[in-house]
């Protein structure tokens, strides 16, 4: 029997980490992920985990220590947000290049500046090409479930890449919701043991790691990393299958919500998907054929699968919770429109930048997006001004 609880996203994450019982956790406090190392330190202090907690002096050192521990042969985890991830950026890239399956809980928060502690996805978007598998979570349950699946994906011998589980700062990290937890022994059995082939602490077979890698080799090494990211797609689905057998909860690259017979749809990630579902329900009650595609696996990017899933739509709105300051639109918008083009699917697409710095996105806002889509779908012309803002205050 699974355990019914009421937990915040941070509590659920810390509890998941406790059940995973990693060898090393190295973390530095930053709002809104601070609670994760706090709760976890309590588990360490009370002896309810075997983990050593390294209270490092910065996030750069947190990722460095995770790299050291993972390379040594241990399972290492961390948690961070926003500028913490930005400070780690150098090491985030090095972790994936050394093919170390470190797992991170990323509680999404706006990157400075100016300083803001609330949710948007600008932190995650800053590492979108860093060779990490990136899973997004609509609510506390998904943040927990994604974390339980994380090591199986990251440590798979055809993958060996680090993985981050994202959830929305404050919106889910600090909101208490009902959650279904898996029993400790079942988590332990599901996650399994980490047994790397080569590791630093193996006296019988010393290892040198992190070379100067020049023109004759770096290209091949990066290509191998890219291969691993492609391999991750298959592994993510396999692990999701096993997870469904364990819990009955089904996961894939994305969730299609009333998408099958929809004429128009929104695509978004994390908590906004919950608001979008409620909006879809309301509009469906009025007979409007709207739907939602909630992206869970952002890296590796399931381009072809998304293109196929939305090919039947007349118009799609892609919501980015991070602006790209590039005069063309957000990351998701660019990735998805390029997926459509490459897969020879012609769907009208519009981009909305929303929720920056924790700005609330309400059902009214999303209803407006659907109404815009209904106009776009019936228009003969190309989409005017496809790079738009949602919830931005206009100057009078």
């Amino acid at each position, binding site marked *: 029997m699974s355990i019914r609880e009421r937990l915040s996203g941070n509590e659920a994450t810390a509890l998941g980490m406790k059940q995973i019982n990693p*060898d*090393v956790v*190295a973390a530095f406090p930053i709002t809104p992920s601070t609670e994760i190392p706090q709760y976890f330190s309590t588990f360490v202090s009370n002896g309810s985990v*075997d*983990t*050593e907690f*390294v*209270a*490092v*002096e*910065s996030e*750069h*050192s947190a990722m*460095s*220590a*995770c*790299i*050291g*521990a*993972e*390379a*040594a*042969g*241990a399972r*290492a985890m961390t948690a961070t947000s926003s500028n913490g991830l930005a400070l780690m950026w*150098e*090491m985030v890239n*090095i972790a994936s290049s*050394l093919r170390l399956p470190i797992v991170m809980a990323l509680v999404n928060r706006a990157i400075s500046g100016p300083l803001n502690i609330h949710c948007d996805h600008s932190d995650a978007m800053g590492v979108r090409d860093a060779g990490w598998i990136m899973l997004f979570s609509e609510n506390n349950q998904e943040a927990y479930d994604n974390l339980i699946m994380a090591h199986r994906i990251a440590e798979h011998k055809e993958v060996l890449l680090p993985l981050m589980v994202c959830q929305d700062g404050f919106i889910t990290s600090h909101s208490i919701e009902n959650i279904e937890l898996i029993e400790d022994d079942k988590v332990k059995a599901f996650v399994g043991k980490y047994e790397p082939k080569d590791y*630093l*602490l*193996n*006296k019988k077979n*010393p*290892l*040198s*790691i*992190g*070379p*100067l*890698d*020049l023109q004759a*080799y770096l290209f091949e090494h990066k290509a191998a990393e890219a291969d691993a990211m492609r391999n991750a797609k298959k592994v993510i689905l396999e692990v999701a299958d096993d997870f469904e057998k364990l819990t009955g909860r089904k996961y894939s690259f994305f969730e299609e919500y009333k998408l099958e017979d929809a004429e128009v749809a929104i695509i978004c990630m994390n908590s906004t998907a919950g608001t979008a579902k409620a909006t879809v329900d309301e509009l469906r009650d009025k007979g409007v054929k709207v739907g939602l595609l909630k992206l869970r696996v952002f890296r590796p990017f399931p381009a072809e699968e998304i293109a196929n899933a939305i090919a039947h739509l007349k118009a799609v709105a892609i919501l980015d919770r991070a602006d790209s300051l590039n005069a063309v639109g957000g990351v998701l918008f660019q990735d998805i429109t390029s997926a459509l083009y490459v897969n020879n699917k012609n769907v009208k697409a519009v981009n909305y930048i929303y929720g920056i710095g924790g700005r609330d996105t309400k059902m009214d806002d999303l209803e407006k997006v659907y109404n815009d889509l209904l106009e776009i779908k019936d228009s003969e012309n190309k989409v005017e001004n496809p790079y738009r803002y949602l919830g931005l205050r206009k100057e009078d």
Partner: protein
Amino acid sequence: MAYNLKEIVAEKPSRFTSGHRMCAGCGAPVVTRMILRALKKDDFAVVSNATGCMEVASFIYPYTAWTDSYIHTAFENAASTLSGVETAYKVFKKKGKIPEDTEIKFIAFGGDGGTYDIGLQSLSGAMERGHDMVYVCYDNGAYMNTGIQRSSATPKFADTTTTPAGEVIPGKMQSRKDLTEILAAHHIPYAAQSIATANFKDLYEKSEKAIYTKGPCFLNVLAPCPRGWGYNTEDLMVINKLAVDTCYWPLYEVIDGKYVINYKPAKKLPVEEFLRPQKRFHHMFKAGNEWMIEEFQKEVDARWEALLKLEEMSNK
């Protein structure tokens, strides 16, 4: 057992192999070899290396000069990276994944750039957290790997590529940071300053102490650079001797807060003896620049006097 260089070299083959690409006349590989020889024969080590000359010349894919395990990740984090490795070791010991009788030691190497400057925070954090490791700074007094730019370890007036001795500004105008003192202020069990002397006794014995003292230990080893300092490659050991005989680089250790000066020259040589053979100080010997040598001497004297007082006070 009395120290005997011949026996040590005969009994303990080098753990840092030939074939690395460090320059002739460089102090760093000489120092590294001897520090690793201080490991007991059966003990194994994990070395963490900051980006720098040592790293780019010793582990060029697919070749490595290291016979123990070795990790390099970035420039500023040799200490924090190693703190992760050491923590993993602690967990493995606790869980019985590593046999009780297997002893693994943790040694970080960084140049002065990776230690005095960009890596100071990571080093300070690792030392404060008490990881059982030795951090070795091979101090060559500038960013040599990128082409001799000044660091906070660069001595005053030195000519570097970012403090060129020009018509208006005669080299680096700031004094050298005293890193060994900063580390001693962390109240770690062992901090020491050393150099490769003719028989390596000082370096070997300090390395042995640092490696086999439990907790965080620090060694600051002056490691001259023929390209950056401008001396003839065959003169490495001459330069080293002048560094200690002029008291420019005092050999001392701080053991649980007590200072021990290991070498007090019977005749303290004027610092210009150390400066003269080095091209980076040539401009100080031009007519009209006598004040620079005087000022340099004053600083060396003041630091030496302060060290003598620390020894006296801490042993009262």
